[in-house]
């Protein structure tokens, strides 16, 4: 009969063996020796501990005899099931992996070992708290459950959420909402069915939940290994200034341009491109205009509406400034622009100006790449 201690040492020995073999095979040369020797040492030490434990505890048949059991109240009962040894073994394994690969695993190993130690201590104490097994069981679960339940729940939920996120990142953009909706509906219907039948057995609910979780987690694992869907990268004014001026630079069209709730109301002005004509509308000033007065200091939001037949973006040309503080004059022509907007779409641009028009060598303008003859002026007093 194996006691929990023997099980741990046996497991650790086996792991040390595997680790030694893997490490020895994968690491050649000078740095490999030290590690291999250390691992062989650990393997031998653990094997010795296993042997000692096996002979002194597990093989000590007289201690298992009925007579003695009756007189030794504390040892009277077989140890209860315990998850601690396995947990400790996992912790050790994580330590080993972490030492070899990433520090995060090592830290995780330390954490798991600590948890295992706490669990082990309390279980061991609980087994000897009194001569009453039922009471002992009650006492140790009272001590442990306030920790176990939240921890296991957090870990379990974390796993489920992480798996779900992998699933959502794997499927393509148009599939994601469908999956999301279907899963949500399933949970709702399932919940309703269970709630409407109070006589359903707990084991059945547990079973369904377990199967669903298992399915989700394995799907998540598979999709995590397969990797995320390709996420498109588009040039920005910072990475490629030409994107704001050349209409052909980036063909991606943003289909969900107006992003925030705020963007549906109270813009500074509205810039519209229609039939190749560009115009700006401000509140109170009737009709389309070619200039707009923007004050400096304030954060402005311009709304751009594309009523043209092709996808358009709009560009803010924020003047020309010469900076001669470093000795040689450097001329800067700051720009900002949006992504391409499909016909009928709107987009929002937030910006703040600190310099008046008078400080700039060229006027502040609004342009649309691809329409070269139309320029709107921003007057900044």
């Amino acid at each position, binding site marked *: 009969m194996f006691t929990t201690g023997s099980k741990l040492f046996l497991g650790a020995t086996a792991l040390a063996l595997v680790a030694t073999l893997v490490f020895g095979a994968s690491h050649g040369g000078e740095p490999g020796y030290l590690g291999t020797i250390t691992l062989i040492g650990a393997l031998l030490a653990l094997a010795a501990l296993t042997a000692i434990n096996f002979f002194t505890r597990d093989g000590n048949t007289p201690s298992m005899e009925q007579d003695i059991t009756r007189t030794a109240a504390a040892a009277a009962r077989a140890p209860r099931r315990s998850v601690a040894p396995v947990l400790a073994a996992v912790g050790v394994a994580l330590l080993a992996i972490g030492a070899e690969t990433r520090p995060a695993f090592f830290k995780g190993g330390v954490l798991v070992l600590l948890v295992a130690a706490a669990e082990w201590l309390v279980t061991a104490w609980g087994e000897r708290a009194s001569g009453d097994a039922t009471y002992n069981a009650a006492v140790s679960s009272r001590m442990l459950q306030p920790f176990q339940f939240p921890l296991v729940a957090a870990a379990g939920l974390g796993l489920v959420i992480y798996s779900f996120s992998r699933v959502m990142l794997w499927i393509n953009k148009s599939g994601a909402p469908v999956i999301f909706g279907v899963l949500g509906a399933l949970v709702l219907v399932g919940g309703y069915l269970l709630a409407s039948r109070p006589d359903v057995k707990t084991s059945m609910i547990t079973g369904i939940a377990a199967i669903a979780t298992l399915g989700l987690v394995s799907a998540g694992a598979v999709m995590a290994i397969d990797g995320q869907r390709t996420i498109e990268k588009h040039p920005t004014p910072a990475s490629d200034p030409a994107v704001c001026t050349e209409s052909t630079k980036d063909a991606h069209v943003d289909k969900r341009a107006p992003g925030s709730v705020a963007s549906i109301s109270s813009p500074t002005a509205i810039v519209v491109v229609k039939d190749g004509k560009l115009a700006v509308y401000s509140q109170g000033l009737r009709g389309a205009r070619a200039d707009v007065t923007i004050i400096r200091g304030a954060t*402005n939001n311009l709304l751009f509406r594309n009523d043209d037949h092709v996808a358009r973006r709009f560009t803010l040309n924020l003047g020309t400034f010469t900076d001669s503080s470093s000795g040689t004059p450097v001329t800067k022509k700051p720009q900002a622009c949006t992504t391409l907007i499909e016909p009928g779409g709107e987009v929002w641009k937030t910006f703040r100006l600190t310099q008046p028009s008078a400080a700039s060598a060229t006027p502040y303008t609004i342009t649309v790449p691809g329409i070269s003859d139309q320029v709107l002026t921003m007057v900044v007093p």
Partner: protein
Amino acid sequence: MTRNIPSPEVAPVHDSPRRVTRRRVGLAATATGLLVALAGCARNAPQDTFQPAGENARSIDNLQRPVFYIAGVIGILVFAAVGYIVWRFKDRGQELPIQGHGKPILEIGPIVLSAALLLGIGVPTVATVFKLAKTSDTQCVVIVTGQQWWWEYTYPVQPGCAAGGIKQPIVTSGQLVVPAKTHVLAEIQSNDVIHSYWIPKLNGKRDAVPGRTHTLRLEADQPGIYSGQCTEFCGLSHARMRMQVAALDQAHFDTWVTNQTAPYQKPTDPAAITGEATFQANCSRCHQVDGMADSAGKPIISQPELYVVSGSAPNLSHLMSRNTFAGAVWDLLTPACRDKVWHAKPEEFSELYLQGVSRECLNEKDLRDWIRDAPAKKPMYSSDAQIASNNGLSRGMPNLKLKDDQISQIIDYLVTRK
């Protein structure tokens, strides 16, 4: 139990009739008090919400007066009912009433009645809401920007407003100059926190929310000056963030626009010339004076964004054409000159206002105090330690530690900025 318990048939805690009389007197006193209160309003309060001086405020007034009257009548009815009940049903040793929870029908009546009454108020309310939100009949647009703790006005380039429109933007602060009898639309923005623009005699208030542009209709029936205050709590000097609207008749407004857009006038007086240099050395980094050039002839552009959180400071190109300063709190005019302008008859007001501030009428004391140590006069977040703790940015004007003669020079210069 041996304790002596008063019989419940007699109220254990008893009221003497004298006290009940006192209560009635109290009620009567309250009612009289309310009447006195209504009669006891101040006359000519500059920000009275019941004295509209323009179309928009008048729509509000027409809406709110009946509501106040109805509320008053209902209030008096309730007081009278309670008063009567208190007198009629006080404990005079009468029989205990029968224990019933009453008839529901007595509830339905008032519910239906009050619903109908509220509907009667609701319909004109909704109509007025949409009427006050209209922007299509605008004749003149002004961008109004709030910042700690003053208002800036920018007249954008537009065809309307003045005869021939506004060709180049005008920037002023504190006092908003508008043509009277004209639909002016204020486009309200903010440079830092939320403020609220409120000229009670012209319209209700509208918040200046950073990142948003809100509109407010303003129209004055007659030339004159209309006071207002920032009404959204905006920090330390919220109480000292005021503003006025000066409405001029159209001809004088056109003159005002011409003056504001005129090219820079270099000072001719020697004192003012010295002052210009002192101003450039100490004030120009934040305060813009349009068209002013340095000794090399290069135009001087202020850079308040380097020194102030809000990124702006009042434009002083035509300081003496307005008659308040520092958040429209202090007068640039001496009390006598001020009264002459502020209490002028509508037909004379425009002319007097356009005269601006002359040397004789200048309230030099407050201006001098302000330039000497602004944060001492108006609490702002601009002490050296505060600026240092905030990446070198100030909120409000710091103490520039100017000497008295420098201050005199600056005033000599500023007085020429009409």
